[in-house]
């Protein structure tokens, strides 16, 4: 055993060395590439900017069908929040403005073929779009998902909407995560009109869509009494777009400086107010961020030697390993190299959830081990006592506990007894207590019979032997094998508690998977963590039982006592 352990340790050490060398090598390579880029980079000349200056106008793609961001006024002239921003852009570049109406479907195409210089048209900042266009950071606005609520609804936050019927449009990317995260019951419609009709007919409590679109709906008289009080969920930032080839050019830098100045001066907040948009948290936070200073009383958000904004002022979704330091950098680097997204390591929120789950699991294991030992020892003492009737009852209960699945017992207590308790005394039963009890009852019954068998075995040589508190440690010594096996099993079984919503490691991992979509990675992490945990448990429990037990006196017969069902159980 020891030899194997040493061997495994050596193999692990070798693997670790190799991995560290590979990491160092690729890290060095990355550093070389980056420093080359950083030093040798005067700003790239922009073809687009030269053309703009030559013709004296900036051509901006804007929306005209998305009030109040872009709309046509009563005279048929285009206007709106984004139109004001476009006008300011042209003014700062010292040229005239030409506006070209674009749609969600053609805006990037028009950019690529040069029909427009800039797109400023309610465009979300996504990785897919970054592949075909250059998106300007900082982002200038953001939107999320909210509910357009019927007038009589009193829903105040997302938790209140849990289990309620909500009208939604098929194919929206946010349907699934919203339904999972907030447990909404979605009624799917083919288009916005049908969904809104259903809302009007009272088929659902609200209509789920992008909050900025809902804000513009609210401006119309037909939705006069309706409201949208819920904070936007699944928030996506909006970005100005320019052509892909303009990446790192003078134009990108100029536009980026303009947006940064919009945040610093509050110009954009002021325009938002002018168009009657509700004050967005995103803009308020951006204003604070872009006006904050570092320890040397210099602006926190200023360009570094590589002409980039610091990581803290960037869109966090697109920050690369090279832009940040510490654990986060290591995690992102690993993701870029292996497409293994270890959010549990580098993401503070996920790491917190995972650790909480781990602590809960460790606590469950400790409680179940203690509970099983207590149930087993107490049961065995009573079963061997003089009170015949009680002893019989305990043996019968032990047989029942041992022969029925603990999962079934958990359901029985949690849902069955829980419903009764709530109906008659409005008491809620703790899921944790129920889980610990059921697992302890099941395992404790096994331990009880192992102890009784050990006592039976002892009676073969000492006919007057009776199990008592005084000799219990000795009997545990005889039944050592089955007792340790039972305790290891209950440690493995604690994951069952996730079935009744105890927030242990399995539940935590499942939640992280659904949020990030990194199912494969999380599954591997979970399995490895549990393997390590169980290996530790096996060692710890053997040590613990060896501490509890007393060496057996009649050594010749005792050692090979009831060796039934040893080894791994599920």
């Amino acid at each position, binding site marked *: 055993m020891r*030899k194997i352990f040493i061997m495994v340790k050596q193999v692990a050490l070798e693997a670790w060395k190799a991995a560290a060398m590979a990491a160092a090598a690729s890290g060095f390579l990355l550093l070389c590439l980056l420093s080359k880029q950083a030093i040798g980079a005067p700003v790239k000349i922009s073809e687009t900017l030269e053309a703009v200056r030559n013709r004296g106008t900036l051509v901006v793609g804007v929306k005209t069908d998305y009030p109040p961001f872009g709309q046509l006024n009563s005279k048929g002239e285009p206007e709106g929040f984004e139109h004001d921003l476009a006008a300011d852009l042209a003014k700062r570049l010292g040229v005239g403005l030409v506006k070209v109406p674009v749609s969600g479907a053609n805006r990037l195409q028009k950019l690529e073929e040069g029909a427009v210089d800039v797109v400023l048209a309610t465009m979300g900042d996504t990785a897919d779009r970054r592949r075909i266009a250059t998106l300007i950071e900082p982002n200038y606005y953001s939107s999320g998902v909210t509910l357009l609520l019927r007038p009589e609804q009193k829903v105040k936050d997302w938790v209140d909407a849990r289990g309620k019927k909500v009208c939604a449009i098929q194919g929206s990317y946010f349907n699934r995560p919203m339904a999972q995260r907030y447990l909404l019951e979605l009624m799917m419609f083919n288009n916005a009109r049908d969904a809104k009709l259903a809302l009007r007919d009272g088929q659902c409590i609200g209509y789920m869509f992008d909050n900025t679109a809902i804000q513009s709906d609210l401006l119309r008289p037909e939705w006069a009494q309706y409201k949208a009080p819920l904070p936007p969920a699944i928030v996506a930032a909006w970005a100005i777009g320019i052509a892909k080839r303009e990446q790192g050019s003078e134009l990108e830098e100029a536009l980026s400086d303009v947006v940064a100045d919009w945040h610093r001066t509050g110009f954009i907040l002021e325009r938002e107010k002018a168009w009657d948009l509700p004050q967005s948290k995103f803009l308020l936070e951006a204003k604070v961020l872009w006006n904050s200073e570092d320890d040397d009383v210099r602006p926190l958000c200023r360009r570094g030697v590589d002409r980039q904004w610091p990581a803290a002022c960037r869109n966090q979704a697109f920050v690369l390993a090279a832009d940040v330091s510490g654990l986060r950098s290591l995690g992102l680097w690993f993701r870029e190299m292996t497409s293994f997204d270890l959010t549990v390591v580098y993401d503070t929120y996920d790491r917190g959830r995972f650790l909480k789950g781990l602590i809960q699991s460790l606590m469950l294991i400790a409680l179940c081990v203690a509970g099983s030992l207590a149930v087993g020892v107490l049961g065995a003492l009573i079963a061997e006592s003089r009170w015949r009737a009680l002893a019989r009852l305990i043996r019968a209960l032990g047989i029942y506990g041992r*022969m029925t*699945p603990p999962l*079934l017992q958990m359901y029985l207590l949690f849902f069955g007894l829980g419903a009764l308790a709530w109906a008659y005394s409005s008491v809620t039963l703790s899921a944790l207590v129920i889980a610990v009890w059921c697992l302890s009852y099941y395992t404790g019954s096994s331990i009880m019979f192992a102890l009784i068998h050990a006592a039976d075995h002892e009676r073969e040589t000492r006919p007057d032997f009776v199990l008592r508190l005084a000799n219990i440690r000795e009997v545990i010594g005889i039944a050592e094998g089955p007792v340790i096996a039972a305790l290891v099993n209950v440690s493995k079984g604690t994951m*069952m508690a996730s079935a009744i919503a105890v927030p242990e490691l399995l539940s935590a991992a499942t939640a992280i998977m659904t949020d990030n979509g990194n199912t494969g990675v999380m599954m591997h992490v979970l399995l490895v963590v549990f*393997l390590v945990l169980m290996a530790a448990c096996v060692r710890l429990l053997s040590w613990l039982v060896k501490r509890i037990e007393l060496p057996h006196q009649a050594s010749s017969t005792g050692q090979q006592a009831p060796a*039934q069902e040893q080894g791994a159980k*599920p």
Partner: protein
Amino acid sequence: MIVQDIFSTLWIWTPFLLAGFGWNVLIALLAMVLGTALGAALALMRLSRFKAIERISSVLTELSRNVPTIVFQFYLAVMLPSQILIPGINWMLDIPGWVKASLALAVAVVGFTSDNLHKSISDWRAGRHSTALLFLPSWTSFLLIIVIASSTASMVGVSELVSRCNAVINAVGDTRLLIPIYLYASLFFLLFCYPLTLAMHRIKARMAARLPAQGGSR
């Protein structure tokens, strides 16, 4: 719902529940067959003359003891595809959910078989044939443990007894049925496992009694 109603509801759903329990037994049997085959291979390897093979087997046995079945079941449910193309003969092999549950449970059987059969084979080779045969009742007792453990397959959506209980509760829509139906389901397990356990204990005792007195140590 008065008592009579509860009994008649349980009676109506009994065939459905019994079929569910059939799945539990099937899952457990498949797990035992697969696990015993692999475990037997490991047990033989542990008795090998070559140190390396013996070590590999010990490490694998240790590993299979440490795998938590429930997590492994989730792992297989998510990571293992539901269909696998067998290369060469161009044939799609279906892997339904219950087979994945069996595979997860089989890991626990591997550890059990490797440990117990290893001892039995040594006994057999040393001429203690009747001691070696004690493996059979132990194996059956372990089958019962796996039948009980197979209820966790409900957590990955296999329609066995426990998940069928929940299905019945949803279909009937009466929360007063909760306690009776779970108790009823636990009786299935009890009535299946208890007689077999008693029988195995008796067989084991009889086999042990026939052992030659001096060869008592295993």
